[in-house]
């Protein structure tokens, strides 16, 4: 009888969980924000862009199959190769890992969802809109044609049309999506692990993702800074890269590669993470050298920020610089080697069983090691003097990226496919696809090493016959089409109807990690109850785990209030600290992304009014989304989450996930700002005429006035938080209102300095740099004011009270960063001309 009651109770719980986590149906399906839907869309779209860029690659190979070909004209070819690189890098390689991670990371962590599902959805829609915009340009003969690193002054002054702007604005937009994903992943990994999963018990995948997300935070912002400077020159003639007016084309190269080199590892490490996930499963034992791998991944992340100059060896930098960067570039091979040998060691100590995913992993190793070895070669400046900008480099990057990303990702696609729909892909087709891809790839790209050594520069739309390039290029082209045939087989395997195919058994590969906990096909709740973890491979080591999870014997087995809930745990030890309610389906994120997209897309065509209108739309959507979906006051302060534990439903200050998200976002923001300041000092160290005449600076009085006003506003914001906590509501409102006024006055004062001293941003790079810093502060001040007004409104609406005060905590945190930004800006603008 009691068993019967138990069963009925569990069924009722399951019913409520299903209701809370139900995926919307019909056209409302597209309002879903849950990680399994968004992750699936994200993966699909990233692969769609991959196939698009792959076709562009085939066009390139068709053109270069024979010397002097006229299959594509020069201009079209230049668009095609630019878009091929751009789309592969920005619309496939980086997003595919965000996509995979959004889909499988919460499952791996036994979480119901990531902490900010709407942010993921916003990121996805941004990615889709920006990606379609960038890709679509080629259909209108308007694609960028400056190469995927867009070196000025070719792209600032010698390429008319909107191609370059599409590249700059479309990609800035996608970079925003990447940073959103980074915030989501860092907070998810640090705060949403299952109880007991201490940080040293995390799956390696989570470690890698943590490293990569942190790298995104410091690597993408310099590019956003670069994009800002670039677009200011394109749209308003501010001469950042124009040597005739004090600018310097090399600043772009620095900013681009400070992003661009870490980006290679941002792409590569998640793929290695997939390998680290699959190898132990097929070796039938835990990974050998867990801590070695973690250290190596962290080490790779660090070193990767010290390598960027190896893309600039031939720009005439001093020998000492070349020596330093050669050493650092060579050194990065060591942590990579350690990771590879950890996998070999795991295979050696285990009992490897053959499988399609493992086949792809083996292929990846064979290819990637070649890319790594040529990488060491080109890391040496002397050798790079010869092969830089030749087909040797084309071969090298493809060996690294195809071996280091495409093969692991395809293998992982076979491995994880059952998680998406409960069906498996065909082993037979998988093997056929593999051998076509593997042979095709090597036939296409191995000869390119020799093509480059024989002197063929990259990015040429044609070449002369009889110089030693003909046969090699023809072979490469044939290989490319074999490679493409492999992908066609893979695509067919994915798309072929699988209606009559039986569902895969549960945990089909007999893996040890939590993502395989679910049924086939899985329920939308992610996990029936959130288990307590005691091992790195809980499915192997914890007996009866699946049974107990299914029976709802762990945390959060119920959704009494029919709300979506997941656990928040402490960063190091994963002690449960909060029951987090996450928001459900909404179209707001799609609308916000459309608005943001409008800002970037209309700006491309200089339709400023429409861009402004889109901005207002985006702002409205975001504010509505925040107002209705965040910092909601719960109906009770705490709830029973099972296993005799009661957890609060609301946490404020540094214990809330929102505070962490703001902190992490602002780290990225400060990095972008550091990029701007770097630009200022770069001009000063490189150019004698910077600043041209110290007396012509923005003066000291106005900037100092601005600093005073901003610091007063910051102080008032801090006080407002205290007064609110102490229940002094009148003072709270007054302080925030006054802070708004002071911010506006401060911004005006900061702009008055360069305005009254007649600094014309189009005349020379010095005034342009001054003005861009002012502009940066101005934009942040505007955001700061919106935040203050938001808090005032929340206060009046009773959604921000002395007890429930996340909003003002998060806003104060933003203001700390804003205060630092203003301080550094004023010190640079007012103080620096005095020193110089």
């Amino acid at each position, binding site marked *: 009888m009691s068993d019967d009651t138990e069963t009925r109770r569990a069924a009722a719980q399951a019913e409520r969980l299903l209701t809370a986590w139900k995926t919307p149906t019909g056209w409302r399906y597209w309002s879903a924000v849950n990680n399994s839907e968004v992750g699936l869309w994200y993966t699909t779209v990233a692969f769609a862009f991959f196939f698009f860029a792959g076709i562009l690659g085939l066009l390139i190979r068709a053109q270069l199959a024979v010397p*002097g*070909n*006229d*299959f594509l004209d*020069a*201009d079209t070819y*230049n668009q095609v190769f630019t878009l091929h690189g751009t789309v592969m890098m920005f619309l496939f390689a980086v997003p595919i890992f965000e996509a995979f991670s959004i889909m499988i990371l919460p499952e791996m962590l036994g979480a119901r969802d990531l902490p900010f599902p709407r942010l993921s959805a916003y990121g996805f829609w941004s990615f889709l809109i920006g990606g379609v915009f960038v890709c679509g340009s080629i259909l209108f003969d308007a694609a960028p044609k*400056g190469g995927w690193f867009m*070196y000025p002054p*070719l792209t600032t002054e*010698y*390429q008319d049309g909107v191609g370059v702007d599409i590249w700059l604005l479309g990609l800035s937009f996608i970079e925003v999506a990447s940073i959103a994903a980074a915030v989501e992943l860092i907070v998810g990994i640090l705060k949403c692990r299952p109880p007991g999963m201490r940080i040293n018990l995390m799956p390696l995948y989570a470690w890698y993702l943590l490293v990569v997300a942190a790298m995104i935070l410091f690597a993408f912002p310099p590019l956003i800074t670069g994009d800002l400077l670039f677009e200011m020159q394109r749209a308003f003639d501010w001469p950042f890269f124009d*040597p005739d007016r004090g*600018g310097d*084309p*090399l600043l772009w190269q620095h900013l681009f590669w400070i992003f661009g080199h870490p980006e290679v590892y941002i792409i590569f490490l998640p793929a290695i993470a997939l390998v680290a996930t699959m190898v132990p499963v097929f070796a039938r034992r835990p990974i*050998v050298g867990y801590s*070695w791998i973690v250290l190596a991944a962290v080490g790779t992340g660090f070193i990767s920020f010290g390598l960027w100059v190896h893309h600039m060896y*031939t*720009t*005439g930098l001093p020998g000492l610089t070349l020596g330093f960067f*050669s050493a650092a570039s*060579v*050194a990065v091979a060591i942590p990579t*080697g*350690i990771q*590879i040998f*950890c996998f*070999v*060691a*795991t295979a*050696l*100590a*285990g009992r*490897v069983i053959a499988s399609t995913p493992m086949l792809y992993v083996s292929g990846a*190793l*064979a290819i990637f090691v*070649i890319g790594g070895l*040529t990488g*060491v*070669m080109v890391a*040496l400046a*002397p*050798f790079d*003097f*010869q092969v*830089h*900008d*030749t087909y040797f480099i084309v071969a090298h990057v493809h060996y690294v990226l195809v071996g280091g990303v495409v093969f692991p990702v395809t293998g992982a696609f076979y491995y994880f496919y059952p998680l998406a729909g409960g069906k498996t892909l065909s082993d037979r087709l998988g093997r056929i696809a593999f051998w076509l891809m593997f042979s095709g790839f090597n036939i296409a790209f191995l000869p390119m090493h020799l093509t480059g*050594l*024989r*002197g063929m*520069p*990259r*990015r040429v*739309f*044609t070449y*002369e016959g009889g*110089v*030693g390039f003909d046969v090699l290029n023809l072979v490469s082209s044939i290989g490319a089409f074999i490679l493409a045939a492999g992908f066609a087989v893979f695509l067919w395997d994915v798309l072929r109807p699988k209606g009559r195919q039986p569902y895969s058994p549960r945990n089909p590969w007999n893996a040890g990690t939590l993502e395989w906990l679910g049924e086939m096909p899985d329920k939308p709740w992610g996990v029936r109850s959130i288990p307590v973890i005691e091992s790195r491979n809980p499915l192997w080591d914890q007996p009866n785990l699946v049974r107990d999870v299914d029976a709802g014997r762990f945390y959060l087995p119920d959704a009494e209030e029919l709300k979506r809930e997941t656990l928040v745990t402490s960063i190091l030890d994963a002690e449960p600290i909060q029951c987090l309610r996450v928001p459900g389906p909404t179209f707001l994120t799609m609308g916000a992304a459309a608005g943001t997209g409008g800002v970037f897309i209309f700006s491309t065509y200089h339709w400023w009014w429409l861009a402004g209108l889109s901005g207002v739309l985006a702002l409205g959507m975001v504010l509505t989304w925040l107002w209705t979906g965040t910092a909601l006051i719960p109906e009770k302060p705490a709830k029973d989450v099972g296993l005799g534990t009661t957890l609060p439903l609301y946490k404020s200050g540094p214990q809330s996930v929102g505070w962490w998200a703001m902190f992490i976002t602002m780290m990225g923001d400060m990095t972008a700002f550091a990029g701007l300041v770097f630009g200022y000092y770069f001009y000063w160290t490189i150019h004698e005429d910077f600043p041209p005449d110290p007396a012509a600076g923005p003066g000291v009085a106005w900037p100092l006035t601005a600093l005073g006003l901003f610091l007063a506003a910051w102080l008032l914001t801090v006080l407002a938080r205290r007064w609110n906590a102490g229940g002094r509501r009148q003072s709270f409102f007054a302080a925030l209102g006054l802070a708004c006024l002071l911010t506006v006055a401060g911004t005006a004062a900061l702009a008055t300095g360069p305005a009254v001293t007649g600094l014309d941003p189009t005349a020379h790079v010095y005034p342009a740099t001054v003005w861009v810093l002012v502009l940066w502060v101005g934009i942040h001040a505007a955001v700061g004011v919106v935040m203050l007004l938001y808090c005032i409104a929340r206060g009046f609406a009773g959604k921000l009270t002395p007890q429930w005060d996340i909003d003002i905590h998060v806003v104060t945190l933003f203001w700390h960063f804003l205060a630092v930004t203003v301080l550094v800006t004023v010190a640079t603008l007012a103080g620096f001309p005095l020193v110089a």
Partner: protein
Amino acid sequence: MPALPIPFLTHGRRLTAAAGVLALAACDGPQSTLTPAGVGAERIADLWWWMFGGAVVIWVVVIGLAVYATRFGTGRHDVRRARLLIIGAGAVFPTVVLTALLIWGLRLMPVLRPPTGDAAVRVEVEGLRWWWRVTYVTPDGRRIPLANEIRLPVGQMAAFTLTSPDVIHSFWIPSLGGKMDMIPGRVTELALEPTRTGVFRGACAEYCGTSHALMQFGVEVLEPAAFDDWLATQAAPAEAPASPEAARGRELFLAFGCGACHAVRGTPADGTIGPDLTHVGGRLTLGAGILPNDPAAFARWIGDTHEVKPDAEMPPFGMLPAADLRALALYLDGLT
């Protein structure tokens, strides 16, 4: 494939034939880093062959280990031995090998970037879209303007001063040594020292816009005496036309305003926007390394400029009567 519009395929037999002979002799072509003809290229080629050999060995060992681990050795080894593999092969071995390689590489730097104070030949090269303005500066300070070709004496160091007025280019003669970028607003330098005579090819290595692929140049390494003769010829003003038709070509050249952009020293044509044509007929190639140097190619360049080199700055003169084109071509071809 359809008709081939790139002229060097239909007309480029002379250069191609020369190149073909060279290619046979040297196995892999006049633009190859692997058939070095300069100090820098030789040292870098040595480095390459050693690295290549080492890389092959390392690849075979790593893949062999992986195959052994997954196929044959599976289950036979304990974790301790597996850990030793990580430390030995993953950390210690690469550290030793890479350190040695780095020392070798860095010791090459002074050879590849030597001080150029005592260079025998000084050349200023300006990269433009899509050609090369070349100026030889003699020890006594005379400046000899040329375009789109480099000739050097064997066994002597040549110092290049590299600039660009428009976009970034990169100056590269693979057979002689590494490349160096030409960056607007900066002056970069490159030293090359040829070790054997012969005809080679140079190319722009940095993507510089539409016709980047068509920005090349001919290179010839001569015996020092032959080099001196050549330079003396280049310094002299243009020769008078040898035939009446060529003389008519000169009249047309001046009448059509070609001199607004081009200089032919010894005539009123003194433009500096385009290449100096004083001895254009004697160059290795036309159109910056993309056409053979014969009257037909001249006519093609003048008439179908943008078919030959898309987006080139020079306006095409395809509207000229065929006879005028022929006369112009003949005149220019005679400027040796």
